[in-house]
């Protein structure tokens, strides 16, 4: 599935992989439910480590980080391994996401 708007694109075209591009600054965690629903389904149906690639996501607001954390909680509840591919040259990715590993021991945050 591909969700494309003027600001962001979410590509969940491969099994076990999802890519998010652009800028996501939606008004509340609730408003992320719809665009993140294919990722949630992907995690639930994953047959191997599920990968979320945000290396080309320029902005994500605190509501988005909250929603990303909730996806990690889904992975923990489903006992699915998760890998978050990040871009250390984007400051908020380098600074804001490391604490998410506290939510799930099988979450790997990997800079690429």
């Amino acid at each position, binding site marked *: 599935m591909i969700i494309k708007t003027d*600001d962001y694109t979410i590509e969940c075209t491969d099994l076990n992989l999802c890519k998010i591009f652009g*800028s996501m*600054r*939606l*008004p*509340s*965690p609730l408003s992320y439910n719809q665009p993140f629903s294919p990722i949630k389904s992907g995690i639930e149906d994953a047959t191997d480590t599920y990968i979320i690639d945000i290396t080309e996501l*320029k*902005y994500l*607001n*605190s*509501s988005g*980080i*909250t929603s990303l*954390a*909730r996806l990690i*909680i889904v992975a923990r509840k489903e006992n699915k391994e998760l890998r978050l591919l990040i871009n250390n040259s*984007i*400051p*908020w990715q380098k*600074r*804001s996401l490391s*604490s998410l590993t*506290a*939510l799930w021991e099988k979450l790997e945050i990997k800079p690429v």
Partner: protein
Amino acid sequence: MLELLTIQQMNKENTIFNLTFIPTNMVSAWKRTSLSSNFCALILSHIENKSLENTFSTLFNELLELCVKFGENKDSPYNLAFNKSKKESEITLKLYLKPTQVKQLKVLINASSKKNFIENINEKFFTTEFAELGVSVYNFTQLFNGKINLHDKPYKGNLETEIQLTINKETL
């Protein structure tokens, strides 16, 4: 959308940036918050350091979202200022909040000043109502090694609130 924007670069080490805005103008289209943040970040990073554009935009956006989502008296002028001196940078936001919101913010700020704040980040932190406010405070204090000071005084049944973020120059 942006009522008044003034920028003064006193010299290489001192910059004053001041933005006055009326949140009502942003409420009508949520995207304006992001556009305004990007616009201000673009200008300020051009003066300061181009590599800071993403950081400025992230910080400004969180503060503008705070105003649009939680602010009261939205037809009154709000103010966002950036003041850089030799050693540190200070971002000050003046907005209007309900007393209960200020109380909630104070609880979060107090919690974030404790050493074990990061260790205590758990599922509850991300699943409570207005969890994004906690994430914002976390970003300011932990990630930018910032200090938050909060001052408030009564204003038309709400509180005129001033949030001061002091960020060490090296952290930026």
